[in-house]
């Protein structure tokens, strides 16, 4: 069996992590969830994740700062931004910095799974979404 995809999920709203973790578990991801960006960044310093999914607006540190940190430490890691404050300028800024994808909340868990699958493909470790059992 291939190695599971290591995913860090960061959102200061606890419900987001609680809702998305099971959805990503179903496609064989190993997910660690965080509500504090400081704690998430500390974990990123310890471990190379394949994918980091982060909210943008958070108290101690914003999602783009988390992205900068990830890029400096682990350039291979794909970063996906999820936000309830999506605007064209922010989307362009994030894209220009090098994020993998950007999605506006609310979204269906399957929308995120599709993005994760594309990120996995880009990392050379494709996952098969047809195996999902809901």
């Amino acid at each position, binding site marked *: 069996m291939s190695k599971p995809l290591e995913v860090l999920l960061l959102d200061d709203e606890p419900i987001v992590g609680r809702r998305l973790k099971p959805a990503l578990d179903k496609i064989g991801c190993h997910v660690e969830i965080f509500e504090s960006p400081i704690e998430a960044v500390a974990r990123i310093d310890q471990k190379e994740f394949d994918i980091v999914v982060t909210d943008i607006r958070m108290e101690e540190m914003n999602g783009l700062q988390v992205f900068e940190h990830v890029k400096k430490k682990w350039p291979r890691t794909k970063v996906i931004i999820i936000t309830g404050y999506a*605007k064209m300028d922010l*989307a362009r800024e994030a894209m220009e910095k*090098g994020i993998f994808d*950007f999605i*506006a909340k609310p979204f269906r868990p399957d929308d995120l799974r599709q993005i994760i699958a594309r990120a996995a493909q880009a990392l050379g470790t494709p996952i098969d979404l047809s195996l999902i059992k809901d």
Partner: protein
Amino acid sequence: MSIIIISSDSEEIEEIIAEKVAVAMDYNRLGSQILTDVAANYQIDPVKLSEALETTPSVFKNMPSRHWRHYLSCIEAEVFDRLLKDNIVCWGLSAHLFVTGISHVMKVRLLSGGGRNIGKIAEQKGITVGRAEKLIADELRQHKKWSLTAYNLDETDPSQYDLVINLEQIDPTEAAITITNAVEYRKFQPMTYSIKCLSNLALAAKVNARLLESMVNIKVQARDSSVVVLTKASNRQKRKKIAAIKELAGDIEGVSYVEVHVKKNILTDATENPY
């Protein structure tokens, strides 16, 4: 890949550069040739569609506001439908004014300056150079007025664009190269969010075109398959109008839920036509 929308103060220049860019990028073209398809799809005289893109509503020109809005909405719906396919250079359809907030759409404004050969225009029309200059100035003024009336946007305002090129200083080939280089920036690449925004606008445009066929005072927003329609009606007609909107909009492919918000319209209280 991205979408490039080119607009200019000269239709000729717009088309020349769009063609160069389409060839260089191997992109599809989306220009005024689609008006025949719009006319066929919505059963409208193609001449009326062209007129709607050039003139503001006027009873004297046989273009009442209600029809004008409907014609424009049909063009918008068709343009959005085609933009969903991506890798497109679009021009000549005023898409720069109604395709808004989509990060993978790069908008370019070309200032023709000396690129417009006044002498040639004067010769073609059999008028003096001075008269040709005045004609062009009037045309520009008219089109600015059109953009403000149709979309409440001044198309001559450079802040509406991602890239503005003055063809008095940059030759057309260089301009096309500049455009093809700029669209390669990561910020103009599609992402899940921008694709979703575009499909929401496309669905809203489709509903808008359907409703404006028989109604006025319609604004439509879409999110996924849910549609919100804002309208005006008198107390007397409110219920009937909501039912009609729900029926028409709910019939459109891709719509699963319709919500209607009605503001009171005192003016229609006294009229027979509910819409």
